């Protein structure tokens, strides 16, 4: 009996597993709340992609900064955000991360280096470059990670940010979560490449491709690139092949079937959480009860967090102009 899978020790495996479970359950419950008509606005669920956010985030410190996208809950949860304030934000409550002003697409927590989800495709990518710039400027060894999708790699802001980071030799890891679709457009209709990773060469930047359903692989590869950046060796691009289980927005696929059930089933067979649980069990690194405990604890935490959110007050309309400016 070993106490690791590959080079990844048991404590890290548990950590990765817990991060993924927390994301999964957070999102499943958010989806139910939305289906129940209890959440205002849009909801872009991260379910299916848990291994990417979790694997990368486990290689980061609190002072390492990430920027995220419209599909940002998973990143926030994995980075260690408080589920209470996240749900409160989804409900638009004053206690939410954005005091109810931002909603699902703008959750952020600077205290743990989460520089925010962003509703503009590509909008957050340059912020990561700036965060890396600031860290380097101050002589800190923290890094910045920008998450974005396959679709986002077609927007100018990605191109400019990648080139800037390369030219300025900044500690940025560009993490492309390639889930095969930009909204309802499959990758083969929005770019000719199979691998977004191939775009890194256009900036003189190394890249890696990893199975985004294998949290251990993501962790190991991210660790390598983060260490590289931390050591002052510059930016890199990590592409994780992954899949979202639910619709682009909301839960159920809308009436236009742009993906086949077969495709969805195939990816679900490779579910990242199931996979790590099986590997841990097989390697005798965890018993079923121990894993179940993680789910149970998380469920309890989520029930409490949703209750907190629901019971929280709405913002006061008298405060409409709060935070527009720093005064």
């Amino acid at each position, binding site marked *: 009996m070993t106490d690791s899978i590959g080079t990844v020790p048991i404590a890290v495996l548990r950590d990765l597993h817990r991060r993924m479970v927390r994301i999964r359950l957070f999102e499943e419950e958010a989806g139910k709340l939305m289906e129940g008509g209890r959440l*205002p606005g849009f909801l872009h669920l991260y379910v299916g992609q848990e291994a990417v956010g979790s694997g990368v985030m486990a290689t980061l410190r609190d002072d390492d900064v990430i920027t995220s996208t419209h599909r940002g809950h998973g990143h926030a949860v994995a980075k260690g955000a408080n589920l209470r304030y996240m749900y409160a934000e989804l409900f*638009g409550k004053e206690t939410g991360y954005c005091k109810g*002003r*931002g*909603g699902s697409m703008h959750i952020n927590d600077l205290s743990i280096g989460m520089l925010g989800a962003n509703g503009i495709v590509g909008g957050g990518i340059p912020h990561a470059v700036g965060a890396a710039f600031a860290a380097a400027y101050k002589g800190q060894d923290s890094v910045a990670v920008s998450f974005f999708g396959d679709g*986002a790699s077609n927007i100018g802001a990605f191109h400019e940010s990648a080139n800037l980071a390369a030219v300025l030799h900044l500690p940025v890891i560009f993490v492309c979560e390639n889930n095969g679709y930009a909204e309802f457009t499959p990758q083969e209709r*929005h770019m000719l490449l199979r691998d977004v990773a191939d775009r890194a060469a256009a900036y003189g930047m190394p890249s890696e491709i990893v199975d985004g359903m294998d949290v251990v692989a993501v962790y190991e590869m991210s660790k390598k690139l983060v260490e590289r950046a931390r050591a002052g060796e510059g930016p890199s691009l990590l592409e994780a092949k992954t899949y979202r289980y639910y619709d682009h927005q909301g839960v159920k696929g809308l009436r236009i079937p742009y993906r086949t059930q077969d495709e969805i089933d195939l990816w679900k067979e490779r579910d990242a959480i199931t996979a790590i649980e099986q590997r841990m069990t097989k390697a005798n690194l965890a018993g079923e009860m121990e894993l179940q405990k993680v789910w149970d604890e998380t469920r309890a935490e989520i029930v409490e967090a949703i209750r907190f959110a629901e019971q929280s007050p709405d913002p006061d309309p008298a405060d*409409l102009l709060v935070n527009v400016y720093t005064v």
Partner: protein
Amino acid sequence: MRELTYVKAFNESLMQAMAEDENVVVIGEDVAHYGGVFHAFDGLLKTYGEKRVIDTPISEMGFLGMGVGAAARGLRPVVDLMFFDFIGVCLDQLYNQAAKLKYMFGGDVTVPLTLTTAGGAGLSAGPQHSQSLEAWLAHVPGLKVALPSSPHDVKGLMVAAIRDDNPTVVVLNKRMLGTKGPVPEEIYAIPFGQAETVRSGNDVTVIGVGRMVNEAVVAAAELAESGIDVEVIDVRTVQPLDSNTILDSVRRTNRAVVVHEAVTFAGIGAEISSQIQEEAFDYLDAPVLRIGAPFSPVPFSPVLERAYIPDSHRIVDGVRHLLERQGA
């Protein structure tokens, strides 16, 4: 007359304009196979095929600019920007290119491009998916800009936009997509620069932009119960602006209120208000009142958003305030 929803009227304008002119093509994100995230483009692919209905990568600067180039070469592209809020990633192609090419190139090039987009708040879409930025576009020489307030107008203004040899922008209001109203079956155009007097009245003129026209109509009905007779004008297009219709009305009613969803400060209401006081100064019994959003981003929280967006209540209050006003 047959009733259609706002979004279906939009859809029909494209169906018919594409039948009318084979140079009309539709370009945008998920407009073809998916039919658009608001289903505004449903069925176009099926009817007109992949040649004329084109899904694009997420590359607004690229595909808007592609529309400009294609327009300069004789097509009539309808380019869709999913949310008005995204204009900042491609604005150069609109004001520095589409709007200026003809002038800047000495007149030889025309750019019959139509940009369609969805603006406005009210869906808890948050600060980056709810904005009303028409004042920016109205400030650009060379552009024309419409904000239809009804299914009828969506169709007519879209047809006019597509037939226009100048670059045009048609801003749909997201909150009205499901709103129903009478829409003629045949193809018809509503000329840009012709405001519509939606309701006649004698006591005060309320000039509305986009969806706010409907709030003004509701306010007018409520005010009528107190014997206040409100004239409501729908500007329909903010560029060109039909100043004459507005001025004629205010010279009769002697009082004016302008209402739009955008933040008041430097909004299009400022232009309308300025023109009224310039051209109808001696007719005014009270200052022109502007009603718009407060100076903040659009909040996500429904409670805040409701307080943020102008509505019939604020118009009612504004009108009453104007009428009660004592001059110096």
